[in-house]
């Protein structure tokens, strides 16, 4: 479950709803009650407000710490750093330019771990890899002159045709800047 939440963009959507729905319910309940059902001043004691405030702030802090703490393992920056020096990883060079991608390799095997090293030669582009079902596996923003190549490690776990796109608007043929990887 935790793996799904952090390795699939729909996981982010689920967490989003987990934050938003309770807020919506509480907010509309209070507004409805104090605007229409009983708008008289509340008799709630001041110390209760204080207790609610502390409880609410603590709940938010704990939720934020848990959500971010659990994500550390899945941060691409951490994954990439943990694989530094691993000789089993295949290095693949990616060059982005208006409006095409150049790859040193474009066919991979299931289970293969690849370190993509990407750069842009003209304007701001991105190197974004989409799963065969359409969702985004990762994107890398490439700014020319950034001083170093972008790097990211990815393991292909399923066969299929993966679409590579530029997700940073780069001019009038931006939409045409795409290519494919084949994973067997």
């Amino acid at each position, binding site marked *: 479950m935790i793996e799904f939440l952090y390795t699939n963009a729909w996981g982010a959507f689920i967490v989003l709803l987990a934050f938003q729905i309770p*807020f919506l319910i509480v907010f509309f309940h209070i507004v409805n009650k104090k605007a229409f059902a009983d708008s008289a001043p509340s008799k709630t004691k001041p110390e209760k407000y204080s207790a609610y405030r502390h409880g*609410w702030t603590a709940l938010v802090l704990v939720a934020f710490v848990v959500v971010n703490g659990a994500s550390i393992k899945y941060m691409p920056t951490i994954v990439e750093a943990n694989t530094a020096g691993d000789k089993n990883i295949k290095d693949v060079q990616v060059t982005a330019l208006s409006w095409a991608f150049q790859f040193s390799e474009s066919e991979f095997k299931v289970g293969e771990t690849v370190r993509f090293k990407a750069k842009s030669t003209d304007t701001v582009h991105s190197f974004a890899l989409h799963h065969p079902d359409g969702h985004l596996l990762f994107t890398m923003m490439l700014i020319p002159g950034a001083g170093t190549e972008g790097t990211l490690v990815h393991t292909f776990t399923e066969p299929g045709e993966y679409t590579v796109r530029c997700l940073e608007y780069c001019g009038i043929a931006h939409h045409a800047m795409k290519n494919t990887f084949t994973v067997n």
Partner: protein
Amino acid sequence: MSAAIKIIDKVPFFGGMFRVESNELNPVNAWPSLMAMTSFVWFAIAAILGVSMPAIQFMELGSNWYYQNITLHGAAMAFPFVFQLMAAMSLHRAGACLGKRADDIFVSLFYIFMNVGALLLTVAVLLGFHVTYTVMFPLPVVGVMTGQWSMFTLVLGFTGIALVLTSMIFIYPIKILRMSFFGQIDSTLQVAERSMKDPGMIGMVMGALVLLVTGTPLMIVAGSLLLHLYGIFPAEWIGWAADAVVFEFVFYIFAHNLMEAMAIMIIGAVYSTLPLCTADGSRKLYSDKIAILALWILLITSVTSFFHHFFTMYPALPSTFAYHGNIMSFATGVGGALTIFTILATIWKHGIIPTPALFLILGGFVMYILDGVSAIVISNVAWNFKLHGTMWAGGHAMVVLIAISALWMGILYYHYPLMTNRTIDDSTARSCIKYFFISYIGLLYTFLAAGAAGMPRRNGAWESDWYIFGAFMLIFGVMLLYAFVLYFLSLRKSTALEY
């Protein structure tokens, strides 16, 4: 009679919404009314362009139309609509609360720079300068080199952008700071006295300072480039400014904090207005101290959370900055949580009068919080790599502007009787709020779901899987447009106040 009143009187349809009587309050009413009216003219154009984008895809009119309309739509919504509306309402509020004139040279210069700049940019875009509202430097220059648009359109477009930025980064903040801290108080203008200890006033000053401080580096970089384009600065002087990394960073430090400044300012305005609508007539927030603490947390955490725009350029953005941006982005949520508590505790403690003005403000606040959650989720480093550049990010930028506009439109409802001596049409306003909220919810979840499904933002050729999201964008976009038409009608159908 004020020049602003004369202009309002001559504008068809929109002029009727903001007709101002000539009286002793003209110094705080006339120019803000003109600015608000002009912002809605820009909105009308931008909204049609917004709805046209999914329509262009369905009718297969071509990507060039799409990129033209996305550039115009984004630029018009963010600057001459939302920012100008915010400036109008905050100048009116500051004037009426502090007893200072809002009709001096700063206000007229703001109006001219903002609207002439936006017009020049519009002309440049119509001539082919399709860079999107985030500019994406060095694309404007690369576009000239690759024949996508001409050098003339680049100079015209940059001139327009420079005028708009000057109005936002220098003229407006300096005017707000002058009103807040300097000058003589005119008691005839001071309709509702407030001190600088008031959370509403503090929020306004914080917002102005954020714009001035975070915008100045962008003005230096963009100004250097523009002076080179005019032939005044030689190329060797501006090499540093033409560096893509330099430009992108100063741009996003400002662009990110522009949204935060507008958010801090509007939360301050909510803190000012909510107590005026309490059922027990107490005119108090639950706690001014907690409200001010929330503003400080939002201010301090938001400034450096801009790093979340660059997480995916690892390792050019060192991990330490990425984690800092991640933590600070979530820390803004702590400020948000205290704001939620202050608003709800005020409502619970004092009760509220369910006026259209308050309901549009509270609806806008809910929209702002819902969007804030989408913003902090995408500010987690792990999720950012899977969502950045998708419709999730585009949707966040759009719905935060919708939320801020709803909040200021609610504030405008509240101040409308003072500004125009008329009262809005209540039933039309209530219908507007319903459609506004439903369309917002529809657009929010459509864009976020599209992003989760991997649909790219700013892509002029949709693939078949994406059209289902496009259909919902069109439906809810038209509904939002209808909500705005109802808003206009609620002002058009306003009636004279009876004393």
